[in-house]
């Protein structure tokens, strides 16, 4: 949806790229299985068919790009992994739960190898445009690894952490233009942690502000709790 909202910019990109398949805006049947230069995949696999589709797309695509939090880590749906999923399915489907496929939630990299990730919930549309532009220009893609704090400081947003709000900005990947802190909302890490995040330092600071249960809740909401703990403890 974020890409459709690009509006004019999207139409402009079409001078350079061909969109072979996008199910929101067209309904053509794929006459024969097509090969793709770049395949952007959003969403996390929820059906057995999805798993087969992912393997099939991997074979037919030169490059697979993970598009957004769901495909990256499962995003908010990963909350299911922190609750009893049997209870959850019985609550939603009291009569028919036995027929509901109820997998553990994960990103698509659990099923197929992937090449690039455009993270976030939602994705930053400008990052999508940047990705396409870089690939068109030089056949490769790079993105600077900077924390959200960098972007808050550039925009002169008064630091929420210093105001006593539990913000994950120091350890999470920038590139979203600090959109949440700009609206007064502390970062909850939807883009995932930086590869060299200093989690233990931030954890110490957060423990001064809120109880451990609340820290866990914030790390769970976008499914990043395991990722952040792995960074400081790779053997976990």
């Amino acid at each position, binding site marked *: *949806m*974020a890409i*459709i*909202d690009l*509006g*004019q910019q999207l*139409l402009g990109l*079409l001078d350079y790229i061909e*969109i072979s398949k996008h*199910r*929101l*805006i*067209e*309904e*053509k049947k794929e006459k024969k299985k097509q090969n793709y230069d770049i395949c952007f995949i959003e969403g996390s*696999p*929820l*059906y057995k068919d*999805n798993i087969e589709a992912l393997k099939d797309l991997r074979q037919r695509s030169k490059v697979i790009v993970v598009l957004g939090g769901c495909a990256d880590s499962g*995003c*908010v*749906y990963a*909350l*299911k992994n922190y*609750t009893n*999923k049997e*209870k*959850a*399915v019985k*609550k*939603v*489907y*009291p*009569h*028919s739960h*036995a*027929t*509901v*496929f*109820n997998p553990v939630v994960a990103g698509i990299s659990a099923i197929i190898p992937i090449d690039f990730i455009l993270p976030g*919930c*939602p994705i930053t549309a400008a990052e999508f445009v940047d990705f396409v532009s870089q690939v068109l220009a030089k056949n490769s893609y790079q993105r600077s690894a900077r924390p959200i704090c960098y972007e808050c400081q550039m925009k002169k947003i008064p630091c929420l952490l210093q105001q006593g709000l539990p913000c994950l900005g120091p350890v999470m990947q920038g590139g979203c233009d600090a*959109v*949440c802190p*700009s*609206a*007064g*909302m502390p970062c*909850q890490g939807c883009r995932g942690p930086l590869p060299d995040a200093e989690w233990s330092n931030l954890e110490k600071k957060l423990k001064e502000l809120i109880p451990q249960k609340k820290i866990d*809740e914030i790390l769970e*909401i976008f499914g990043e709790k395991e990722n952040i703990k792995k960074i400081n403890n790779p053997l976990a």
Partner: protein
Amino acid sequence: MEGHASFVGDIISTGHVQQACVQTEEGSRLIEGILIGRHYSEAKTVTSRICGVCPVVHYLTAMQAMERALNITPREIDLIIRKLLEASQIIYSHALHMFFLSLPDFLNFDDDLKMAGKYPQETQIAIAIRQWAIDLQQIVAGRTIHPLSMEEGGMKKYPAKKELQVLLSRADDVIAKTIILANFFAKLEYPKFSRETEFIALGKKNEYAFYDGNLISNKKLNISEEKFYHHIEEIDRPYNLVKRTHWQGNPYFVGALARINLNHQQLHAEAKNILNHAKIKLPNFNTFYNVLAQAIELVHFACEMKKQLKNIIANYKECDIKKNIKFKIKAGQGVGAIEAPRGTLFHYYELDKNGYIIDCNIITPTAQFLANLEADLKVHLPDTLKLSKAERERRIKQLIRAYDPCISCATH
């Protein structure tokens, strides 16, 4: 349309329809299951992710339900801001659906980009209307997809007055564009069809209800949101991840056509004008006209956005987070009900004394009208036998799309 679904129809040789069934092809994310045990403040964040086309209304409805559960009466300024955002959500969604999802059916295209090539002016108009809504949601909610700035009791951050004034300065141009687009839709050819049903929507005196009200219908229904919610029948069938709903044992329709049928007297003048010139007699049970109803609402809600923008600017001194309502966390339950673009959306939550969710339920408009769509298809299918196979397929898809189903919402 939004999300993926398939239709299975079965007509036997005597013309009798044995089966007319819409199946979702989305997996279930079990949103209501995974919200149990979470803090009340997370419901709006999580439920807005149910759908990329209508995240704003989920956020607002979750917040409304939580405020009711916590006995918070929102300040007047915050109500105005939320109505502004909901009006914006409706035109954002309607312009997308009418133009990019439904119109190809009326003009016989299977690809939006080809259609945009043949109708460049109208495409630019649809994009410009959406751009105003996108910019407004960015400025007022902090972000277009998945809002940020509103919270129970008030706002985390209010929009800047200057930015609201710039948005207001664009209003007249956008309203003029919505009128052009609505007239374009009024001139399309709509297939002939009619099946009487119950139209249900929010109703309020002196207002084209959309943010709150009683539930009303063309069959003399008039009850509170809470009462209606607690008496909806949800039907859970095996291998069908979308639970249908019935009202008093029958399918019913929610959405733009329901709202126009029930509340057209309260439309803003510019929208009423389009309705009068379209020469459709009300009550109207031709669900293909849901698309025209959306076109009329496009005009109405653009006017509504102008009105609410003026309101906020006139009362800007109230836009102060220091005036946010301070409240105590307590056990309680609340029903939120707001007219989403596709019809009435319900969120229900029950909280424990620490503000954690112990029960919840979300009933989306698509889940509510799917049974009605299937009933319509059952009646219309025999009429399509005289068409060629390709035309029949097109006609069936056209009716399904006219409803504007949001399959991601319905499945959640």
